[in-house]
């Protein structure tokens, strides 16, 4: 290695993976423009809500939480996709996941801010946000929420950045025909990465350690989010199962989201060689496990309630199964479980189209699932005579803001893929002898300490 030059491991797909980063097409600009437009509409609608008050939504008494909180839980759940794949699967030594780690982590990174935005949109006085720091009470589940999500966001940025670092250096060195400001950006962000064996070794070790940390954070975050509901004594919410229920739902919907994103990337950027169909088959197996696990959670929860027959709980139960929310409940069962399971088992193998179709259904269904957890409990308070109303129709304001949040997520993601390689080049090398540069080839646990050849 010549002094002063950075080492980049040889990747046979380098040109293929770097191709999308070399040029921005007019189709991109149109897409970005449209997304910015939707985002802009969302901002205007929100400003109107901020000035007039939350009365412009459909929320009322007793339905104090509606679409915005559903969005919050949904986006935080979506974020679990990346961490599951890049952290948990990394620890399990599932090396097949290497090409899609960055694509999955990017979902995490870009959906978390919109989860946070959903909460801010729902606050009556967002101008008083600082009160949480100044007067925060750690006895409150919202403080646990705030801490956990902030920590998750921060660590995700660091984890993502570290995984990206060698590839930023690669962009700096290879992409010579991009605008100067872009070159400068790569130079600054590369932090002088040289690609020495020690640097790679340390990077790998750090990522291993962070993977453990992120796995713990991920479990904590969504459990803590569920405890905002679980720690109240309201029927339908106050169940010990709510933590695992939310956590599993998050990993489930997140993994399905990864399938969708992967299919889009593969098609749009012609990355079929770098993202082979075997990836989809591996994800399919995971999704079958998750679908069945979700069924387990639903049965455990609802059978227990039904058998126990406590009057307060049964009110909420019937609201879901036969009452005002029945059509949403049964639609959810179809979209999350019945149809996707059939597709995953019988149609999904080697078929990206079917996988994507099922994954879209899963995500729509999971949004409905969050709605089903939150709303029926609010419409059946213990003191039923208190119920003067109990119907909730989200207004255009709420839908516009929801749409703009999704637009924002898509925009950030799409722009990112045009500036950085979405498949990690340094983690998907095949030509290099791994022993020479201490690159990860075996699982973290179960590795023999001394492996000199």
């Amino acid at each position, binding site marked *: 290695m010549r002094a002063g030059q950075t080492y980049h491991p040889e990747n046979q797909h380098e040109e293929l993976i770097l191709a999308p980063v070399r040029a921005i097409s007019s189709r991109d600009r149109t897409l970005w423009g449209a997304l910015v437009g939707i985002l802009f509409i969302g901002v205007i609608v929100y400003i109107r809500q901020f000035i007039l008050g*939350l009365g412009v939504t459909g929320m009322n008494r007793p339905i*104090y939480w509606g679409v915005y909180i559903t969005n919050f839980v949904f986006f935080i759940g979506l974020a679990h996709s990346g961490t599951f794949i890049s952290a948990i699967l990394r620890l399990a030594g599932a090396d097949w996941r290497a090409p899609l780690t960055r694509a999955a982590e990017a979902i995490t990174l870009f959906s978390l801010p919109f989860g946070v935005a959903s909460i801010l949109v729902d606050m009556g006085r967002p101008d008083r946000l600082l009160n949480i720091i100044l*007067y925060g009470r750690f006895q409150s589940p919202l403080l646990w929420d*705030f801490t956990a999500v902030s920590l998750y966001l921060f660590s995700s940025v660091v984890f993502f950045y570290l995984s990206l670092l060698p590839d930023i250096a690669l962009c700096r060195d290879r992409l010579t025909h991009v605008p100067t400001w872009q070159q400068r950006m790569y130079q600054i962000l590369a932090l002088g990465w040289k690609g020495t064996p020690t640097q790679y070794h340390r990077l790998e070790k750090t990522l291993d350690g962070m993977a453990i940390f992120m796995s713990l954070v991920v479990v904590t975050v969504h459990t803590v989010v569920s405890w905002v509901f679980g720690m109240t004594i309201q029927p339908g919410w106050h169940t010990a199962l709510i933590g695992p229920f939310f956590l599993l739902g998050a990993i489930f919907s997140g993994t399905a989201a990864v399938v969708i994103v992967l299919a889009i990337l593969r098609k749009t950027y012609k990355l079929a060689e770098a993202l082979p169909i075997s990836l989809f088959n591996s994800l399919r197996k995971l999704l079958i496990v998750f679908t069945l696990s979700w069924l387990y959670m639903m049965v455990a929860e609802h059978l227990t309630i039904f058998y126990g027959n406590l009057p307060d709980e049964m009110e909420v139960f019937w609201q879901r199964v036969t009452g005002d929310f029945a059509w949403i409940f049964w639609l959810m069962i179809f979209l999350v479980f019945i149809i996707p399971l059939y597709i995953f088992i019988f149609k999904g193998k080697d078929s990206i189209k079917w996988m994507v179709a099922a994954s879209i259904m899963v995500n729509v269904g999971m949004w409905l699932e969050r709605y089903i957890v939150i709303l029926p409990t609010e419409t059946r308070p213990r003191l039923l005579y208190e119920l003067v109303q109990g119907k909730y129709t989200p207004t255009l304001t709420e839908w516009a803001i929801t749409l703009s949040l999704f637009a924002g997520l898509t925009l950030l993601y799409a722009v990112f893929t045009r500036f950085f390689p979405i498949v990690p080049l340094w983690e998907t090398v095949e030509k290099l002898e791994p022993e020479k540069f201490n690159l990860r080839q075996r699982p973290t646990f179960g590795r023999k300490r001394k492996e000199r050849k």
Partner: protein
Amino acid sequence: MTKWSMVIDLDKCVACQGCSIACRFENNTPIVVPSEAALGRSILWNEVFPLRSEGEGAIASDQAKFLTRPCMHCEDPPCVKVCPVGATYKDEEGIVRQNYTRCIGCRLCTVACPYGVRYFNWYEPDWADSIERPLNPDRLEGPRDLEGPSVRPQGVVEKCTFCIHRLHKARERAKAEGRDFRSDEYVPACVQTCTGKARFFGDLDDPESTVSQLAQSRRAFRLLEDAGTHPKVIYLHEG
């Protein structure tokens, strides 16, 4: 230590809603237009409900037809537990307070309360625009503190305060007159107004107060007694 409590005798209550109306005027509760009321967004710190005597949601009594409900001012309030900023808190005298300046409008207290006593300001509070409505000038105000009948901003939660401004006024009057404050010197507006003389108010820690004695009545019960909240509003069912 003082422990403020209210006893409501359902045998004497005629559901005239005088308590609710008095409360609204005393505490500057904003009015809402009919479309908002249809959504259920009326703010009624004290609310009067018709009850079913049997079937779902029945209350433990076979004759009570109406229930009037202020804030329970629980001894172990679920709302206070979950407030992220301490905008709602329980003071040493057992009153669950609400500070409008600090509230961030997250509404976790509102969904956590099993009695549904909390309300939210969906818009900037408004009164009839043609008539200059006389507002109760009493305010409870500190450097970062706004409570009681003080005019609320939009986006904050509010609820019954046992007319805490009256408590402060009574205390100041006693101090100005150079004597001790007696716990029967102050009553909330609803108690003062009740046409059937069905409401009583006082110090539960004082064994000789009316509320202490009525609390031991055979007819006494509390709402959701097994929820662990220990509400301090005691009802006497029709006997």
